[in-house]
């Protein structure tokens, strides 16, 4: 089943190259909807318990202990669902935005889908690395070919940044496998094997963790590794921004949850490392918000807001309480939905006015009431208004983090004010204020296609805000397992030292 999830979009990408250009988008939409249909049953068949499910594990390169191993647990389940949920919307949202080389664009989108899903379901470090790179290349082209004016700079920056991190990660993976093999005599890239047979890494663990940390921190992105994000977001086409924010950033936090922290708990829980990461997360929250506040470009503002949101996630992961980890998982989902919707809206505004500048708008709520209403709701979700999804996640993170780091959580709570300080003024300058530009007087309101893109997201915003239990119930065992394993092995290692 998970294999079908990876194989189908890759296959569909090839198929897409065979169909005439004018059908490309429809075929891509159908393919991505089919993908969602493949993934959706996981929601019901997933058993809310710890451990991996829907596993498949066959040898791939036996000489080196490389296997094709996939599976999902509560942590990755919702990232898989979120990915398959956002891709059809992104395709639909690109219908009028992408007008050149459509076949190539949609084929890359599907290839990207395969890569993203591969990252989330891989249970073999080699496979994980391969998928990590697979997803990198289509995104590079999506930004570099269909992006804005400064697209090449942004695309190369994105690529080099991520590639830099991922090469370090590759070194760390190889070193980890080698050191483990040295101790046990078995060469294996298997996640489960490496987890159950931790090598006596000693001081090397710091360096390996550092390499993983860089790879994932760049992806998250944590301050000060974040500057690729605004450029990439601004230049990328709408669908690219949505998937970049919605899914790709989550790979960083997912990497911490799945690999970096469980492999090296003694490092992750080292007081100095803890302090450093919590401080960086806080800097991300406050700094990202403050810088977002003064952005003249709407997409850049959203990009910096992502830095702030992901700072909450990092805080939640490191606080290591059930509430905070659950909240972090929720924020990962919520950020995909809310920020995805914001990028869709920014794209829709851009299509109407051919400007991303906040100053180009003003007072348009009178002209486009529907768009204004949706934008208001989505912004409110992004600043964490109670009874929307944004609140539930951030509240849980802060509540949980407060048990571990009271001061940090209090400062992070200040980020809630900053969130209102950057989004509300922007909202005001876009849809409120005098309607003083004649170009804005005849903007068309949302079309049915655009509504079809936004309504599922809006529905999720309200649903998760009011009744998050179905999600929390499915993620709880995995979150619990994560916390317990990290705490237990850290304790064991400290005791054994």
């Amino acid at each position, binding site marked *: 089943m998970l294999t079908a999830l990876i194989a189908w979009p890759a296959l569909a990408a090839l198929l897409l190259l065979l169909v005439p250009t004018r059908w490309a988008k429809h075929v891509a939409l159908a393919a991505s909807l089919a993908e969602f249909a493949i993934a959706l049953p996981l929601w019901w068949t997933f058993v809310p318990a710890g451990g991996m499910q829907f596993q498949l594990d066959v040898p791939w390169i036996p000489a080196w202990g490389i296997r094709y191993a996939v599976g999902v647990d509560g942590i990755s389940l919702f990232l898989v669902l979120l990915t398959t949920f956002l891709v059809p919307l992104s395709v639909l949202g690109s219908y009028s935005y992408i007008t050149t080389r459509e076949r190539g664009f949609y084929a890359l989108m599907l290839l990207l889908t395969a890569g993203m899903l591969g990252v989330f379901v891989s249970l073999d470090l080699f496979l994980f690395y391969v998928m990590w790179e697979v997803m990198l290349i289509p995104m590079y082209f999506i930004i570099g070919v269909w992006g804005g004016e400064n697209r090449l700079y942004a695309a190369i920056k994105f690529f080099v940044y991520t590639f830099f991190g991922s090469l370090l990660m590759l070194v760390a993976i190889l070193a980890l496998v080698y050191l483990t093999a040295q101790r046990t005599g078995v060469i294996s890239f298997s996640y489960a094997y490496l987890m159950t047979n931790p090598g006596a890494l000693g001081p090397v663990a710091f360096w390996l963790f550092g390499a993983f940390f860089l790879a994932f921190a760049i992806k998250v992105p944590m301050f000060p590794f974040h500057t690729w994000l605004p450029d990439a977001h601004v230049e990328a086409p709408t669908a690219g921004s949505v998937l970049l924010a919605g899914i790709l950033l989550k790979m960083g936090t997912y990497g911490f949850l799945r690999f970096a922290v469980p492999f090296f708990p003694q490092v992750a829980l080292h007081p100095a490392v803890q302090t450093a990461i919590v401080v960086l997360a806080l800097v991300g929250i406050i700094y990202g918000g*403050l810088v977002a506040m*003064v952005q003249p470009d709407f997409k850049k503002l959203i990009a910096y807001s992502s830095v702030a949101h992901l700072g909450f996630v990092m805080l939640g992961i490191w606080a290591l309480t059930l509430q905070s980890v659950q909240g972090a998982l929720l924020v990962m989902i919520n950020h995909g939905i809310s920020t995805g919707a914001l990028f869709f809206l920014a794209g829709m505004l851009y299509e109407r006015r051919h400007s991303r500048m906040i100053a180009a708008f003003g007072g348009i709520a009178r002209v486009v009431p529907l768009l204004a209403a949706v934008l208001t709701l989505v912004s409110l979700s992004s600043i964490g208004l*109670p009874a929307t999804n944004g609140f539930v996640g951030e*509240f849980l993170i802060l509540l949980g983090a407060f048990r571990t780091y*009271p001061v940090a959580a*209090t400062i992070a*709570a200040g980020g809630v*004010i900053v969130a*209102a300080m950057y989004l509300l003024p922007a909202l005001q300058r876009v849809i409120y204020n005098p309607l003083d530009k004649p170009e804005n007087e005849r903007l068309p309101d949302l079309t049915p296609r655009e509504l079809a893109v936004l309504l599922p997201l809006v529905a999720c915003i309200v649903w998760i805000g009011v009744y998050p*239990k179905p999600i929390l119930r499915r993620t709880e065992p995995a979150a619990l397992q994560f916390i317990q394993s990290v705490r237990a092995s850290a304790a064991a290692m400290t005791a054994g030292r």
Partner: protein
Amino acid sequence: MPGSLLDALWLVPALPLAGFVLNGALALTRPGAKRAVSLIGVGVLLLAFAAAAGAVVAFARLPGGEPVVQRYWEWLPVGDLQVHFALQLDRLSAVMILVVTGVGALIHLFSVGYMHDDPGYARYFAYLNLFVFFMLMLVLGASFPVMFVGWEGVGLCSYLLIGFWFNEQINADAGKKAFIVNRIGDVGFLVAMFLLFRATGSLDFGDVFSRAAGTFPPGGALITAITLFLFLGCTGKSAQIPLYTWLPDAMQGPTPVSALIHAATMVTAGVYLVARCGVLFALAPVASAVVAGVGALTALFAATIALKQWDIKRVLAYSTISQLGYMFLGVGTGAHAAGIFHLATHSFFKALLFLGAGSVIHAMHHAYHATHAHDDAQDMRNMGGLRHQLPWTASLMWIATLAISGLPPLAGFFSKDEILSAAFAQGAVRPIWYAFWAMGIAAALLTAFYMTRLMLYTFHGANRTGEGARAHLHEAPWVMTGPLVALGGLTLAGGALNVSPLFGGGTWLHRWLEPVTAAADRLQPAVELSRATEWALVLGAVAVAALGIVGALRLLKPEALVPARLAPPETGLGRVLWKKWYVDELYDAVLVRPVMWLSREVLWKVVDARLVDGLLVNGSAVASRALGWVGSRLQTGEVGFYVVLFVIGVLAVLGAAVR
């Protein structure tokens, strides 16, 4: 039968929510359907009032007065945190839902007339319904997080309704300011929740309050911190020092909104919260003193500003801040019933005052509209003598003015008197309360003065509206005066809710609230005063009020006023008051601008663009290019040079191998 009415408690908030959904849909699809919108908008409020009344009656029949908690679904079930989406009806929330739905229904009705010609009619009622929904969630929530849903939700509606005429920048700015200032307070609320959860392991009201006494040593640092953080939330929502500045700006919204949200209901949420958490505050004497002190100080401070405002709504806004200060003085003193009593009576007479002001503005606006004049329809200098044109409004507003000044036997007299007596009595135990009491008395004097000033300038003396416009001034239609009359009745009779034994009353509200306040009262017993002292206090308060009114009548000369556009600028102390003690300017210079400057000039342009991106990111690119350049110098392009290097290399390797 009573049981089933209590089971229908969810209907109370659900009805306004349904109204919001329906009106919102109409606003987006058929904004012209005014009849349907009015029917839905007012109808759901009346039904909600009926449902609330039914539930309260059913509740009153239950013995004991224990809170009834209705759990609907698990909202945040995470490990040891179990938050249900649950509503709780107890005697305190019973009072609140009746006030909210009752006064709310009257104000909805008034809005039908006031907003009749507005193109955003449907949107207006959608927001108003949504506000009532969130307000009911706030007062009915059975746990801190559910209450917080309402707490932030009302802030949202306030934001939307202040900026209702969003095409004027000043309105949108005011809405934004309200939201952000409220958010600062909300963080206090959040942190208080985190502390409570860490200490007690629960966020349900029932659990927290029953565990409080066992968990927190009285006067301890933890409980003091919790209550102070909670109170920070209250200062935001209820516009107390230092977070009061948003409320006067909030007057940019439609006047019925000011009446409903910024006078009668939302701004009282902080008082409700302190009363709800009475047990916690009783355990923290320092925090209680802060609450009472901030309340007394705000009461006095806002009253001074109200003295010199010309905008009729701004006078009322500062008056609201001042009256809220009284309520905090009450609940901070531990006189929860008195605070809630003043909350209720204040919602009657202040709603009446605001709606009356709305009626005046409505008339002024129409007059200026008809004559195409561009004068300010809210400036009292453009009014005067309106009692001839608006007799109903004038007489009803006089009732409210006398009530807020504290003249017997109107509602405000009883409630204000109780608060001041309680504060004075507390002085016997903690002398600082004498200072609070004195501030309260001084504020009462100013209150009587500025309210009389408002009435004089608006309704008496010669008319300054302008020759042409004067003919167009007329009384509002019955949908607007009807609610005024109803509120006037409540203002006259509302004091009966809680007449103190001094006047032969039975303090009905006090006894009704007893199950809620009992725990706090045990921790912080009220101080009894002798009959003679009480009489002296009452007479003194009445004398002060009368002095204020008479002083205003004597000192102020409505005849000397000129219309706003001809008026000379203020000077001296008057200017300082008119400029609101320059607090907005201070905040702007000390907080807003530095933060903006820091974000733009330092964080973004220097740290982000120069340091991280310029130095580190592009810097590493430059460094690697420079390294490449050094290497490239070796490549001369001459094959001969390469061969020389090659041979040298081979010889070197050979040499190394031989050795």
